[in-house]
């Protein structure tokens, strides 16, 4: 399943639609009409398909089972593994496109695997997507515009990513389907087929959303500094090993501390191309960084 033939939305038309929705009047008629369509489900698909054409002939497979709203928002480990199994032949070229995931999410709605209103659900255990839309549409006064705008942005993020507001990392972190793919791909890359290592890396990638976002920044936004697969994989492996050695009692489980450790690697990489080092040499340097931050950081604090 390579890049060219797989079905995806026309990128330019989809981007235009997203920009119209988020850069128009906050809480205005355009946003309200859009949310009503999402609430209805079928209207939403008509609205999207009327504006954005589909390119490519190969239909990627769907999740085998219908997902509950909770499963869609925060898929359990087993569900993410099953999703990756279904889409394991996708290439990074395809999987980095919001146009691909947006089309795939729409096809899941079309085929009853998820409901459109799930897209509006915020993280955690708060109200369902449908309830959130209803509240936003009924809100009055100053809060109304903010609530409607927030809801529209959530829908667009869940749908396939919102790069206009969240940059290139959006497709990795905001859409549950693409997030599952990228998370499992990282597990695959770092573990190289070793099931025990895969389990440890999976733990690292699933601590919480803030932690996952830090890991994604490592591979996307700072790709030029420390993105080479050798450095990235060895760094994540060192973090995973530290978790095991400390029985998960390490301040490196907090996203801001992980960020600090990444910065230290970035400082080393400013003068050195670490990817030319052997695996053992790389491990020694990166483990020293990880261990240093483990010793240095207080265990107090949380990701909030």
């Amino acid at each position, binding site marked *: 399943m*390579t*890049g060219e033939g797989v079905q995806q939305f026309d990128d*330019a038309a989809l981007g235009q639609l997203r*920009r119209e929705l988020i*850069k*128009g009047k906050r809480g205005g008629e355009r946003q309200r009409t859009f949310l009503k369509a999402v609430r209805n489900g079928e209207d939403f698909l008509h609205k999207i398909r009327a504006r954005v054409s589909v390119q490519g002939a190969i239909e990627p497979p769907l999740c085998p089972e219908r997902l509950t709203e909770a499963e869609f928002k925060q898929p359990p480990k087993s569900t993410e593994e099953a999703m990756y199994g279904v889409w394991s032949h996708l*290439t*990074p*070229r395809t*999987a*980095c*496109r919001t146009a691909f995931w947006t089309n795939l999410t729409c096809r899941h709605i079309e085929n009853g695997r998820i409901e459109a209103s799930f897209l509006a659900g915020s993280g955690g255990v708060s109200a369902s997507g449908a309830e959130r839309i209803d509240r936003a549409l009924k809100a009055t006064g100053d809060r109304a515009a903010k609530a409607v705008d927030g809801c529209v942005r959530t829908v667009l993020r869940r749908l396939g990513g919102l790069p206009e507001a969240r940059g*290139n990392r959006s497709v*990795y972190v905001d859409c549950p389907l693409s997030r599952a793919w*990228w998370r499992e791909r990282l597990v695959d890359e770092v573990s190289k087929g070793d099931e025990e290592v895969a389990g440890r890396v999976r733990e690292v990638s699933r601590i919480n959303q803030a932690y996952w976002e830090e890991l994604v920044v490592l*591979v*996307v*936004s700072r*790709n*030029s500094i420390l*993105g*080479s*697969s*050798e450095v990235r994989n060895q760094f994540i492996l060192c973090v995973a090993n530290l978790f095991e050695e400390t029985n998960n009692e390490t301040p490196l489980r907090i996203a801001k501390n992980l960020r600090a450790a990444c910065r230290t690697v970035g400082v080393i990489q*400013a*003068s*050195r*191309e*670490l*990817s*030319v*080092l052997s695996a053992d*040499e790389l491990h020694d340097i990166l483990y020293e960084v990880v261990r240093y931050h483990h010793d240095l950081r207080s265990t107090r604090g949380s990701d909030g």
Partner: protein
Amino acid sequence: MNVIVTSARSTSNAVRSHPFPVLEAGNISFPKGRYTLEFILNQDRTSFKLRHRIAGANLISRLLSTGKARYVCTVSSPISSYRRTHVSSEALHTIDWDLDDLGEPPLFTPMIVGIEDLPDCLLSAREDGVHEIWDMTRVSIPKGSRLALGQVIQFQSSILHLMSLQVDEGLSAGQFYVDAETEHGFQFRVSLHPELHQFLQIPRNDGIRRHIMTHIVTACLALLQREFQQDPENGSLPRNLDSFRDFLKNDGLPDWSESRFRPEEVATKLYPHVLPTEWERAGS
């Protein structure tokens, strides 16, 4: 062939402090240092040959000739989290990639990298070509150190792979013209005023660069219509030009031999002008 020269005297906003001398734009560690890179694009669009040349930086030249440094080029596509390092002991080496790994035209960062730990290196301005501030200084150069760093380069897309951007100092500021080269495959030779040439070498995603490239592409397509409307007498186009024709057909676009071919229409389909949104206009 595209040539890019990085010298200490070039200006840069990214000058950093390193614990050892580095040849990079804006860094005076090697005052007479020049790092020249020649890119020879292959027709397959998934590889090119890269030649590194170091001059005026004896320390780096010596480390290369004694096998203590290597010629390196990283290929990256941050959008798809791809980054691979190509290392060679030869100054001329092939850089390749798999399109399925990339989410955008790849970025290339050429460099010279030390591959041995040099814990106690006594520098000499006369012998090593370093600035006097480094003279008789002992430095440690750890394995992996970037000794020379070229500009980050991005070849943008298919028709741009057919282009060779050249400096023409006889042109006025902002001026360019396009010729065809058919001796080895096919290439558009785009001659540009030096500043315009420099501006287009550095990847950025701003509107001005995009509009200039759309203009250049229009000129290239007009040249094809003007000079290649009839197939050559031997019946075969250069292979890369033939591939470009297939590329247009696959996108549902006419090729230059058809009467409905309008260079500006095809160019703006491939590289549409992007207008500011209502929101951006309101903010300006």
